[in-house]
């Protein structure tokens, strides 16, 4: 198992890291890059806590080999806030709606909600629920999470 140099962009910063063929992207993000916002839940694709964006699309970092990151643009929950730490409107909406209880699902939920809003600016409740169906929350009962995505969509549309 020879180490590989892998180059990618992480939250806008170019990175070059040395990884093993069997290293998971999730472990590189959490252990090497020390970005622990991306959570390690089930490790088998079932919970969505590890969701990151690769080239603008949400994928599960627990099922991606780090080598596959070569040449790609990766954004984690830490990369959503703007310059100076201004929160993303979706993060604001989560705060406003009290959509966080234990918080373990929150990074994955926000990465999913953000991806949906980028694709479908003002989603219906049914669209939000369908899009978030691979991301599990054991605390909130989802209502406040779904509402946050709808609210953020409405706010962004009003601001445009």
């Amino acid at each position: 198992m020879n180490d590989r140099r892998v180059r990618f962009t992480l939250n806008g910063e170019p990175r070059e890291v040395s990884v093993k063929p069997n290293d998971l992207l999730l472990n590189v993000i959490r252990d090497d890059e020390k970005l622990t916002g991306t959570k390690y839940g089930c490790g088998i694709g079932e919970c969505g806590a590890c969701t990151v964006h690769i080239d603008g699309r949400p994928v599960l970092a627990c099922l991606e080999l780090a080598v596959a990151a070569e040449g790609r643009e990766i954004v984690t929950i830490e990369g959503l806030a703007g310059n100076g730490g201004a929160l993303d409107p979706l993060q604001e909406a989560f705060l406003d709606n009290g959509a966080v209880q234990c918080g373990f699902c929150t990074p994955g939920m926000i990465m999913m909600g953000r991806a949906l809003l980028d694709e479908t600016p003002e989603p219906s409740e049914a669209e939000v629920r369908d899009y978030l169906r691979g991301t599990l929350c054991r605390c909130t009962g989802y209502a406040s999470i779904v509402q946050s995505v709808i609210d953020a969509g409405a706010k962004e549309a009003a601001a445009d």
Partner: protein
Amino acid sequence: MYAEFDLLTPAAVGGALDELAKVENEEDCMPLGGGTNLVVDLRARAVAPKVLISVGRLSGLRGIELGEGRVSMGGAVTVSEILRHPERSRFGPALIGAAQVFAGQMVRNTATIAGNICCGSPAADLVPPLLALDAVVRLECSAGSRELPLADYFTGYKSSVRKPNELLTRVWWPEPPAGSASLFYKLARRKGDAITVVGVAVSLARENGICTRARIALGAVAPVVERVRPAEAMLEGNALEPDLIEAAARAAAQQSSPIDDVRASGKYRRQQVFVLVRRLLSRAWRSLSEGDHP
């Protein structure tokens, strides 16, 4: 990850085939598509290849082409790419229906059509619609390529005619003509992200009030996804009256050989095959008589 393996990342399909040509032992080397089955299996130590060959991003395995009466997809086309394609309405509604209920968004963004076929799972959701649409698969090795009907691909539970040195590079099927209809239904414990308990795809063509072509394919109720040829033969050449549809649904339930597992009993699955085949055939036939093609 605990499992150890080497990972090759060839730049083109030819390079991947050359690497596969060196493989002596089937268990030693596996193609890696999106990894949504394989990475889970590696971590569970269900498989332990020494080498993986990454093929999921090879441009030669990508792309969806329409033309000459065919729908043709590269093996590394993802479920999301199927759903986002501007011409998706030409692919066959059963396939779109299956893609819509397939996993969650994140898995769909990486899961490939070849991976779904080659994982060999009887619950693979794209396979019943592809069988109903008469899909053909292309298998390539460094020495050449061959094509065969998907219906002849599986030989048993998780086994197929694919040789270890072959890649599944393309899947194509005749573009569904006007006057045909196809439908898919996935019965599962919940809507999102659940393994199929029973999957049914049907496809019908109608001319002058007669069914000219019938396909029924069942998922998750036998060691392989399979067509129900006796039931198809009952329908072809006839007007699909309710009694005939009911008899075909009964034949489908009879052919199925479902097992009991944590998700459902075999008895329940077989009953659902009957209900779902009857329902989908009735709907598809009705939509054709109304002159609207679902």
